């Protein structure tokens, strides 16, 4: 009969439809209490929403901030770590001594730490890890270890590192990923199975979705509260908000859409944490190329931008205004915002004077939320002052890195430099994409690194001021650290000034 044929033709699809319809029906059964997913109160699991999933778990060969964000201090530990105030504190090294010539560091190590593969952590492993940076790492960060002349294990619990010359930055860098301590037989599969001594051990990785970290049962320090912490990755800010609102996650680790905080601020179910970061949002100039090689043009740009209004519009007023490349958490911070106050008349006058109005400036920004947002404000502000600006959006990372960063084919760009203490990296090297070549700054930086801690502060202050006066770039604002979490989650890192999203202190009140 025809009817049976028809069923044969569309039958499979329809049967499937019925089955699916039934199950879909049952699922829409209103049951709000169950919609909290796996993170219902009382369980010891926490889900943290983050943006930008790592592509690999191996930060020895892959650049990218997402890997240390997830693993550093959590899975891998360092000898020394950075606390919330930017101070260097003991970690695997319980104490350390610096020789009087400031070239030899002697670390006393804990004897309780164990790698998650069962091996105990000893000074030999520390030597191995330090040497391995120089030998096998491929990312550019390895250069921070160049200053090390020699590392040797004095005993199982004592490590001695000798530098080629005194360096204030070396110990600081040891708090970052290059200081991560790895086991010689734990590096076979760094990209997918990291092995460290940290409070958490690596669990599973659902690519494209989440990384799960399990509490390390053999951790040598205070055990973490949560048995499992899931880092769940989102592509856009709205999805993050929705996930928190519907209980899929408990914490938004980094708020990328500050405008949306309004909906959480008035809500008693959530807490909003505001702190600072190392992320200076810089309107960078190509300092060697006309017209940006002209000081007056650069000054005109700095006068033309209404920083307060900019921060209000593009980052909802969150953040800190800074006048140079130094965040308030660094010891050499100084408020330099008064150097170039918003002064449209002056900007217009400088534009007239330099005749720059006839040139179209290429503002080439990466496709990142803050850059896209600020770019439109900067363009509008500059056009008010008489500049001509073409806004180019370059896909981040690939296109922006090639065009702006590597080939310096740009006039202005906007990017947040999130590395700690990166003034020297950004403005001390004439090869860097800012192409800023100022002997005074370079000398100050060198003196700061090799000098005493007091000299370091003095020279860094000088460098920061020169930089700002010379309008080497415009410093739009300092990115805030914005976290939204369920009420009752404690131990969330207020400031994001290390490379890590430190999960070790997390708890529930």
């Amino acid at each position, binding site marked *: 009969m025809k009817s049976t044929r028809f069923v044969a033709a569309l039958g499979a699809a329809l049967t499937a439809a019925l089955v699916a319809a039934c199950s879909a029906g049952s699922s829409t059964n209103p049951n709000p209490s169950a919609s909290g997913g796996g993170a219902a109160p009382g369980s010891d699991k926490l889900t943290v929403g983050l943006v930008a999933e790592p592509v690999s778990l191996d930060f020895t060969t892959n*650049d990218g901030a997402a890997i240390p964000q997830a693993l550093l201090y959590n899975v891998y530990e360092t000898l020394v770590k950075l606390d919330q105030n930017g101070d260097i504190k003991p970690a695997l090294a319980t104490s350390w001594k610096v020789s009087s010539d400031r070239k030899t560091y002697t670390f006393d190590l804990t004897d309780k730490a164990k790698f998650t593969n069962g091996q105990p952590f000893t000074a030999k492993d520390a030597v191995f890890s330090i040497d391995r940076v120089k030998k096998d790492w*491929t990312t550019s960060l390895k250069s921070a270890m160049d200053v090390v002349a020699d590392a040797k294990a004095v005993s199982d619990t004592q490590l001695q590192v000798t530098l080629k010359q005194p360096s204030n930055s070396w110990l600081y860098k040891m708090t970052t990923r290059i200081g991560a301590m790895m086991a010689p037989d734990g590096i076979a599969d760094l990209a997918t199975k990291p092995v460290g001594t940290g409070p958490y051990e690596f669990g599973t990785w659902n690519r494209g979705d989440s990384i799960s970290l399990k509490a390390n049962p053999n951790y040598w320090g205070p055990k973490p509260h949560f048995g499992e912490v899931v880092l769940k990755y989102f592509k856009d800010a709205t999805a993050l908000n929705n996930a928190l609102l519907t209980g899929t996650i408990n914490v938004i680790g980094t708020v990328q859409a500050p405008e949306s905080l309004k909906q959480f601020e008035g809500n008693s179910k959530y807490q909003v944490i505001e702190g600072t970061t190392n992320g200076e949002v810089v309107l960078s100039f190509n300092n060697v190329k006309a017209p940006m090689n002209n000081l007056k043009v650069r000054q005109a740009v700095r006068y033309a931008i209404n920083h307060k209004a900019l921060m209000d519009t593009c980052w909802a007023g969150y953040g800190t205004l800074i006048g140079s490349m130094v965040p308030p958490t660094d010891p050499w911070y100084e408020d330099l915002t008064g150097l170039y106050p918003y002064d449209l008349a002056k900007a217009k006058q400088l534009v007239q004077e330099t005749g720059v109005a006839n040139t179209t400036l290429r503002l080439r920004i990466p496709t990142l939320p803050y850059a896209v947002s600020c770019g439109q404000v900067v363009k509008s502000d500059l056009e008010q002052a008489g500049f001509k600006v073409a806004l180019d959006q370059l896909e981040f990372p690939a296109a922006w890195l*090639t065009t702006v960063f590597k080939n310096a084919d740009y006039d202005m760009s906007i990017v947040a430099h999130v590395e700690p203490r990166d003034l020297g990296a950004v403005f001390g090297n004439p090869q860097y994409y800012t192409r800023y070549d100022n002997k005074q700054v370079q000398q100050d930086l060198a003196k700061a690194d090799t000098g005493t801690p007091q000299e370091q502060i003095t020279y860094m202050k000088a460098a920061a001021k020169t930089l700002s006066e010379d309008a080497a770039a415009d410093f739009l604002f300092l990115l805030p650290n914005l976290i939204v979490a369920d009420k009752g989650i404690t131990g969330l890192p207020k400031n994001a000034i290390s490379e890590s999203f430190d999960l070790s202190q997390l708890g529930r009140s």
Partner: protein
Amino acid sequence: MLLRILRRTGILLASLVASTVLVFAFMAVLPGDPARVALGVNASDEAVGQLRREFGLDRPLAAQYLSWIGGLARFDLGTSYISHAPIGPQIADRLMVTLWLVVTAMVIALVVAVPLGTVMAMRHRRPSGVLLSALSQVGVAVPAFLAGILLITVFAIGLGWLPANGWTPPDQDPVMFVKQLTLPALSLGIVQAAVLTRYVRSAILDVMREDYIRTARAKGLTPTQALRRHGMRNASIPVITVLGLQLATLLIGAVVVERVFVIPGLGSLLLDAVSNRDLIVVQDVVMVLVLAVLVVNFVVDLLYLVIDPRLQVSSR
């Protein structure tokens, strides 16, 4: 009939080979160096060169192509430039996710569109039919991601019935799986249903005008019976064509909805790979998508053979 199947299989294979060339050529002209992206901006040229050698990117294009399709023929999709992980299992995982989404959406679309389109056709002159038809036009005009945003706003945030986003594999937690699948599948499905409804309606209208429906009614079948017994099978031919096309569109169209609902499907894998310049992954994903579409077309053609006896005898 056998001849037809053979011929169709031949076309499928030829298309596959041709598409590998096209995909590879397209990738070859994409600027951006995967090695440099992997190593970060300050990497030395030597390091980049070394990595390029490791990936085999320094070989002539023809050699790269041959080793790629050689791998494909052995179902070995290679290793990612960036994560150093084998690509095959990754794509398989992501494809499963996308397929769940797409097939569920398709089923929703069918379940909605077939009865609705039929009703619209049978009442195409009455106000109710015209109203439904107008509604379906509006449905066609709404982008799937907008539907997704609306659904999230109402059912996840507003009513709190379902999670706003996320993905759980069915074997891990079937209940959560269904919950998380519902909204994205609906937002894809509703829009597709609107499109499909219009095709069903016009296919049924066409069929209802056919002489054999009149013959059937002259036999003593009611209009509904005539349509069910004689119309549906014939109307299903154009509808299946559209279904095939839609399935292909959905495989790709899912990428936007995957983004809105944070679903780790094939589309998001591709977007990530593009921004990381993980070209080998991009190449493989595009190839898999092309393959999927070609296979869908192939299956649709075979379905014609099953449905339409006129195609079974003569080989064109």
